[in-house]
């Protein structure tokens, strides 16, 4: 500030004003950064030893399952942080491999189809074993739960009526009408075997076009209900199937395989008591329970974390 003393008056004033405004700007930035430093995702990248990072994909059920796993681990005194809504399996699998995530709710058959599109899916046990063989060596699958949530091709009530499709119709019955239908699904559905590719190679279905929506979420539900698309990839635990009278087409060739909810974990990141806790969750989680929990989140708009905690408590796992 000594130099300003020699300057003309206006420059002195200017320098003073600059100092004031710079200080104000600095205070503003400092104020912002002190807002939530504890949750800084950058800090989460360098996970401290002993902390388990539970990740989830970008759909409501995945968040719910991640909350269930995370809270079950916390109940055993394990330190947990969450990394929610990451994206599709194509992204989360990479993050599992590089160690950014320790635990991820997965669907065993869908994961197998991602790792090896041509693999046969005979039983949920066999699927689990096959997945373990194909997995990156640092990763493993824990026990599968009886709860199953598959991808499915469902049509809306209007389309079902028009083409005489019922709940006993199969994907093969769609062959002649598919060229008249627009099918919707997540962007990744377009390039997956358990998606457009398999529908064409297994059932010979070629749709009029594909509309990229979300992973079985509200966009997909709304597009199918509103007939923007006539068929869509709907998860079999989706509560809107009943609500909107969607018709789920049977899959006799088992293209969508088995999809039992199963924890995918990094071996070194999870202590044995954590493994036991997650296996205990799998033992208690069946399809009916999952349907009920999904409905609480998606229809009753309850917070997934609250739903997860309440269920763990009722199941004696908290």
């Amino acid at each position, binding site marked *: 500030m000594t130099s300003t003393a020699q300057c003309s008056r206006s420059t002195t004033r*200017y320098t003073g004003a600059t100092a004031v405004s710079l200080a104000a700007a600095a205070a503003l930035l400092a104020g912002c950064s002190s807002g939530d430093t504890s*949750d800084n*995702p950058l800090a989460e990248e360098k996970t401290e030893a002993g902390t388990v990072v539970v990740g989830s994909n970008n759909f409501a059920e995945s968040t719910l399952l991640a909350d269930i796993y995370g809270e079950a681990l916390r109940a055993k005194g394990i330190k947990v942080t969450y990394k929610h809504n990451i994206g599709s399996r194509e992204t989360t699998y990479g993050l599992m491999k590089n160690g950014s995530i320790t635990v991820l709710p997965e669907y065993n058959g869908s994961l197998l189809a991602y790792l090896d599109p041509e693999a046969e899916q005979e039983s949920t046990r066999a699927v689990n074993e096959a997945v373990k063989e194909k997995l990156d060596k640092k990763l493993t699958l824990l026990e599968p739960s009886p709860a199953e949530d598959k991808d499915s091709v469902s049509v809306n009530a209007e389309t079902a009526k028009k083409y005489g499709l019922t709940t006993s119709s199969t994907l093969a019955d769609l062959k002649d009408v598919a060229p008249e239908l627009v099918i919707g699904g997540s962007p990744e559905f377009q390039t997956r075997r358990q998606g457009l590719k398999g529908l064409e190679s297994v059932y010979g279905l070629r749709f009029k076009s594909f509309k990229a929506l979300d992973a079985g979420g509200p966009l997909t539900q709304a597009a199918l209900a509103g007939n923007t698309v006539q068929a869509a990839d709907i998860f079999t635990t989706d509560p809107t199937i009943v609500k909107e009278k969607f018709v789920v087409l049977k899959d006799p060739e088992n293209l969508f395989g088995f999809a039992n909810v199963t924890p995918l974990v990094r071996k070194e990141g999870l202590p044995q008591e954590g493994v036991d806790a997650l296996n205990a969750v799998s033992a208690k989680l069946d399809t009916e329970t999952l349907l009920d929990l999904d409905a609480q989140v998606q229809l009753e708009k309850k917070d997934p974390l609250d739903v997860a905690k309440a269920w763990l408590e009722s199941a004696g796992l908290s």
Partner: protein
Amino acid sequence: MNGFFDIPSDLQHSWSGLIGLHLREALLPVAAGLLLALPLAQLCVRFRRLYPPVLGATTVLYAIPSLAFFVVLIDYTGQSELTVMIPLAVYSLVVLVPAIVDGVRSVPGETLAAATAMGFGPVRRYLQVQLPIAAPAIVAGLRVATASSISLVSVGALIGNQGALGNLLAAAQKYDRPELAVNAVLTMAALAILCDALLVLLRTLLTPWMPRGTRRPRPAARSRRPEPEAATR
């Protein structure tokens, strides 16, 4: 769980926490952009031939959609705040360099000559004469960069909860709760207006010699290069 301020737990922040995060993710890149733009602009003023290629390069950079920028950066910086902030800093730089160059160039030659005659060295002349006179133009650039940055942060929601208030938009869609989207839009708009008002105040503080009402750059000076506008990609 369907109130205006009931933030879903998977966002892991309170509403005020999201605001703090949003301001940090939006404003730090603008500050970084300014720090980089000042020397770069000075180089462009000093070496006139440098300016057209710099202007061309920045125009091309500005044309790249932010989401693509984020996705490509994920491999280097992970799904982190940094992945969102780097492109925003680049966009700020792109807006600020021409603003500063035009501002500094608009300083009349006789003013510079007078400063030199008073014994000002080049550094002191730059800091105490050129920059203050260019201040209105620089602040105009900062206003555009800030508004754009606040809006663009929300696109980070697409790369895994990195969009601060934008995460509310993804949640609104995921849980079909439009009120969360209303919250996000209104809060972001309020932040943009607030930051803009602060910048206008800053300009008033920086240019005490200017009478009220004449602080806007003259239209004639603008016609050569209109100020760039905020963009959300």
